[in-house]
């Protein structure tokens, strides 16, 4: 049975490769997810050309909403941000799973992502790159910071930075012993959690040097020593580790927050064949390894970590012992409307003196 599927997709692939005329694939993605060498290889193999637009979760939704899902052929939002946006704005179209070579994916991730991106029984996303956010700490100066709540400790006063975004709210909620994900469906319960986190973050404000906005900003702050403990992505910590062995990513005790960036197809995308071709192409283990090297994050490609440099693997293993991996809190799909509650909370924290 499995071999028939394989054969069928292989045939479909072959068919698209040879019969479809060369298309332009307009890719809306994150920095590092479509490195130049991968694009060149893809263009040489398929004849399609790729236009890469770098973005982030919020902008992807805003861009696609502005055009009712047009202007791009393939987007890469995080898996938790698809269902809500789809229900609200209808900016994606369902994936035709028959055109995707599912054997290239790590099965557990594929299943989880399909479940999370399901709207009205249709699948809207398949996993691509995954990673976590947690703590990036200068261990020589703030080794005591082990959890989100430790950022509010007087010993690191004035040397702390985090974003004023939803991951911070979630991280602190876990660290304070609550489970925000369990409360996703219950707006009142979620609001109660937010209120507690709000009080905590306002209280913590004097500890914070600044709320960082962009990846480069937090890296600069950590590198210069102006900030010694922060909430940030794992890859940022590992990159800094290359320059300064004291700085590294620490999986918080309450659990790192796990995210998976997916492939999703904008509702009015034109080059669907090229999009499927790109998905199947980049999920090949050797291509996935190239992307991991460029982006610093591992992919959902089965065997994709085999070709990754040992140094990166070593850092990953140092930050993630087995119990830390088991403790990763994977983001469930965000129900529509939740962002409004979080936004009001964030505004109040921002305005507080």
């Amino acid at each position, binding site marked *: 049975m499995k071999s028939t599927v394989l054969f069928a997709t292989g045939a479909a692939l072959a068919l698209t490769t040879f019969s479809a005329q060369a298309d332009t694939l307009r890719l809306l993605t994150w920095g590092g997810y479509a490195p130049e060498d991968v694009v060149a290889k893809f263009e040489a193999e398929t004849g399609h050309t790729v236009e890469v637009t770098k973005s982030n979760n*919020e*902008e992807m*939704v*805003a861009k696609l*909403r502005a055009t009712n899902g047009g202007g791009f052929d393939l987007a890469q939002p995080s898996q938790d941000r698809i269902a809500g*946006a789809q*229900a*609200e*704005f*209808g900016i994606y179209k369902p994936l035709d799973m028959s055109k995707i070579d599912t054997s290239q994916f790590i099965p557990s991730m594929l299943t989880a992502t399909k479940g999370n991106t399901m709207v009205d029984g249709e699948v809207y996303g398949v996993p691509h790159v995954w990673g976590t956010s947690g703590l990036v700490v200068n261990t020589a100066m703030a080794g005591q910071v082990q959890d989100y709540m430790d950022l509010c400790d007087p010993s690191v006063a004035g040397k702390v930075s985090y974003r004023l*975004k939803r991951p911070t709210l979630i991280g602190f909620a876990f660290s304070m012993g609550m489970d925000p994900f369990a409360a996703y469906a219950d707006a009142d319960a979620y609001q109660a959690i937010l209120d507690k986190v709000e009080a905590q973050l306002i209280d913590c*404000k004097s500890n*914070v*040097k*600044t*709320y960082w*906005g962009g990846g480069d*900003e937090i890296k600069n702050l950590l590198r*210069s*020593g*102006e900030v010694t403990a922060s909430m940030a992505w794992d890859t940022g910590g590992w990159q800094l580790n290359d320059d300064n062995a004291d700085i590294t990513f620490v999986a918080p005790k309450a659990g790192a927050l796990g995210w998976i960036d997916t492939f999703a197809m904008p509702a009015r995308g034109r080059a669907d064949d090229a999009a499927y071709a790109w998905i199947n192409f980049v999920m090949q283990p050797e291509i996935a390894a190239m992307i991991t090297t460029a982006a610093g994050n591992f992919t959902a490609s089965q065997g994709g970590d085999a070709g990754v440099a040992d140094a990166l693997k070593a850092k990953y293993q140092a930050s993630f012992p087995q119990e830390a991996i088991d403790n990763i809190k994977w983001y469930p799909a965000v129900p*529509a*409307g939740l*962002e*409004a509650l979080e*936004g009001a909370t964030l*505004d*109040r924290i*921002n*305005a*507080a*003196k």
Partner: protein
Amino acid sequence: MASDKSRLGLILLMAPLAIWLMTLIVLPHVGMFLVSLQEKVGIRQYETSLANYAVFFNEPLYWNTFARTAYMSITATVLTLLIGFPVAYYIAKLTRGRTKTTLFLMCLIPFWVSELVRTFGWMILLRETGVLSSFLQYIGVLAGPVEFLYNDAAIMTGLVYTSMLFMVVPLVTTLDSLDDSLIEAGYDLGGSSFSILREIVIPHAMPGIVSGCIVVFMLSLGNYLTPILLGGKDSLWFTGLIYDQFITRFNWELGSAFGFLLLGLSSLIVFLALKLSGQSLGKTMGR
């Protein structure tokens, strides 16, 4: 017959401008206004109401943010005027020929790089491990590193720096047109430097001052990068709120309402300032 022809010519001549105004300015605003009247009542369900505008007036946070933005912008405008006026006076009245051109160009040079790069430049200067802090430690003024970044003074520095050219250019133009003999006549009749500045130079430069102030105020009010990057933990800026509503909250309806409120309230402030200074928009912009 001839007048018909000339009217047709006029219509054809004005058509590009009219199309430009319609498609790039009027239509988007009409669209935004319609969006701002949509109240979200459920998933993909909207009702027409003024609820989004009510949010602004009922939520003190938004009010305060606007008041703060306006207050900071007015302060930045006043500071820019106070710094820009002597600069413009020096360029317009005390230099000639090549020096004048050079000084004018020097005011322009910062605008050859993007606003982002300029702002990053200030971050490098002002940060705790930055140039200013290191220099002050080096000459012994400071005992340890001091953070100059992430406060309202840093925002003010950035705003004034960004706005300087837009104040200096109209001021230089109006001061240039001030006949030197008027200043000399002032001295000749026994005027002091201060009374000549107050009674002759400033009244003459008033249109330049007003147009410079309007431009700088609007630029500061609409600035997004500078307050976000240089500002501190509680430095909310109204444009930042609008951005958040559009991009991170997906709340275009409220964002549009905020956009219109910004337009309306800032116009109101400019109108009041014009009334207070006894100037009219036609008089200042017509020059």
